[in-house]
């Protein structure tokens, strides 16, 4: 079956006074039906921009510089704005990081959900209200009647995120992008939220893209993982093989940075800093941080190659190593 979302060769650029910032550099990414895909990277790696690009919500001075985005076979970049708008929220929905600020502070939360029912499904006011309460119950909010009348600042962080999820799922989207949905929540609440996401995803059959900088979250939740670095997609694999055999030097560094109870060693942060994306040179953007860097890395961007089934990586060094030791 064709993937639900096919991103091909997508580039997003921001024009600034100083030059062009290549926030997303020609990435390819598929999201399959019903799966949970983790999109991982440090902050500034272009994950959120990619998500916004899918919504076609890149605002000036940003622009989509090239590539295509197909959703269920339809080219989103070619759709008229009005049609695109009908897809947003209805077919593709998004859960934002920092739920508190992502809710309108001057509208009661119930109204914020209800208006989506009315907008996308043409429900009557009463029907929208009924469904809102139902949805609030579904995401585990106690006393939905009362909470629906509350404003964002009256709810706890976890509650807000549940509201956000209720909003995102209200119209049964087929694709849900969740951008750092657990930022700022304490550990137990975060776990509940993630469980909730997974359950609801399963129940509705929606595909979920979980955007996070935390590989640990990905490990417990996702089917597949895509790793981004400085706007480039460096590795994409099913979750088990990625953790067992991280191929890209960056992925390896990321995996090492996960705090683990079963290891005595303390967590190592990824060495180096995210490079400036302003008029970035061609080639791999990890080159300056990479322990295995080759000369070619700095001049030509490595293509993605399949390393195993469902495991692709874009790295000359890895490729070279694999060729040298074919057993992998």
């Amino acid at each position, binding site marked *: 079956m064709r993937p639900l979302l096919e991103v091909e060769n997508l580039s997003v650029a921001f024009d600034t006074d100083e030059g062009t910032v290549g926030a997303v550099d020609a990435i390819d990414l598929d999201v399959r039906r019903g799966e949970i895909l983790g999109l991982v990277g440090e902050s500034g790696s272009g994950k959120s921009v990619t998500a*916004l690009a899918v*919504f076609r*919500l890149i605002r*000036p001075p940003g622009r989509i510089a090239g590539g295509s985005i197909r959703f269920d076979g339809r080219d989103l970049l070619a759709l008229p704005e009005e049609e695109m*708008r*009908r*897809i*947003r*929220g*209805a077919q593709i*929905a*998004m859960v*934002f*990081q*920092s739920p508190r*600020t*992502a*809710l*309108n*502070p*001057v*509208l009661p939360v119930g109204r914020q959900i209800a*208006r*989506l029912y009315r*907008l*996308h499904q043409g429900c009557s006011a009463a029907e929208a209200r009924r469904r809102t309460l139902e949805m609030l119950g579904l995401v585990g909010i106690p006393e939905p009647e009362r909470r629906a009348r509350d404003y964002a*600042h009256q709810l706890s962080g976890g509650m807000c995120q549940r509201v*956000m999820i209720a*909003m995102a799922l209200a119209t049964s989207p087929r694709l849900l992008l969740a951008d750092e949905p657990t930022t700022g929540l304490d550990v137990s609440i975060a776990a509940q939220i993630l469980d909730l996401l997974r359950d609801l995803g399963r129940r509705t059959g929606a595909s979920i893209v979980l955007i996070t900088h935390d590989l640990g979250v990905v490990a417990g939740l996702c089917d597949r993982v895509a790793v981004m670095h400085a706007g480039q997609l460096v590795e994409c694999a099913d979750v088990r093989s990625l953790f067992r055999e991280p191929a890209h030097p960056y992925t390896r560094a990321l995996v090492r940075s996960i705090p683990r109870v079963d290891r005595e060693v303390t967590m190592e942060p990824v060495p180096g800093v995210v490079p400036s994306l302003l008029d970035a040179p061609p080639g791999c953007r990890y080159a300056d941080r990479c322990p295995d860097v080759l000369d070619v890395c700095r001049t030509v961007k490595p293509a993605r190659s399949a390393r195993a089934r469902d495991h692709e990586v874009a790295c000359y060094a890895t490729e070279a190593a694999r060729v040298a030791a074919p057993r992998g």
Partner: protein
Amino acid sequence: MGLGRYVATRVLLVLPTLFGVTLITFALTYLLPGNPALVKAGPLATPEHIREMERQMGLDRPVPVQYWRYLSGVLRGDFGESATTGRPVLQDFLQRVPATLELTLASMLIAIAVGIPLGVVAAVRRDGPVDHASRLLGVGGVAMPTFWTGLLAVYLFFYHLGVAPPPLGRLSPGVMAPTALTGLYAVDALLTGNARALGSALHQLMLPSLTLGFSVMAPVTRMVRATMLEILESDYIKAAWAAGLPRRTIVYGDALRNCLIPVITLVGVVFGFLMAGNVVVEIVFAWPGIGNYAVTSLLTKDAAPIQGFVLFVAVVYVLINLTVDLVYGVVDPRIRLR
């Protein structure tokens, strides 16, 4: 912090400020040159006559005693007596406050009715023609002396084009004032259905309120634009876009609604500018308000009205800022946490 405590704290904080204000206004008149007793006594008065006047006016007492007399007088609503009109300052004030209020409200209405949409459009169509135009208008509006704009307007619209009435106060000659309900002629005329007075009042109000409104519009536009830009970049607006809400709903519903709350704080700022502008605009348009009264008194060195005016404006300004703070606290509960 609870709402009650918040209100109490804010109100208590105002008291020392008000005390300071009376000290300053007292000091101002104490220093004012020109012996008020002499003004009252007239040019042919004898020294004894002047001394008698001084005694009557308490000018021969020690400064703290004079201050105490002043303060207790003010608390009783006694602002002294004007030498030019021979009436208690309070009475003169009450007669003129509606004129100033009408002009101030109309100007604020214009500043807000034009300034807010302009700021919104400038933010939404950032770097578009409206944005540039509003910025130019903004810097221009702030850079022109208000009296100069007013005179220019009189020259153009009254003298040359003849579309504005003569700058002669609140009603054209021959039009009777409407029955006094609020003292605001336009409102009173509207309420009593007096079309002739309403037309005349609005017509007279047109140039002065446009002049004044134009001069204070810039800060309004500026702040609305900044706030709006900030809001348009905010997460919940992004969320709204991502939820597929139509543009209209997002910009004029979600964003504007949030934008208007901080705009409340502008009322205080704008009022401050308006009070300053009032003084000169009332002169230019012979508007019979308290600013005009103050300047006339200034020219005759009539101390009591000047003192009363400065005090009055300061107290109103303090109270408006207090009200703005309180309203803001009520409207936006987040503020009370600070």
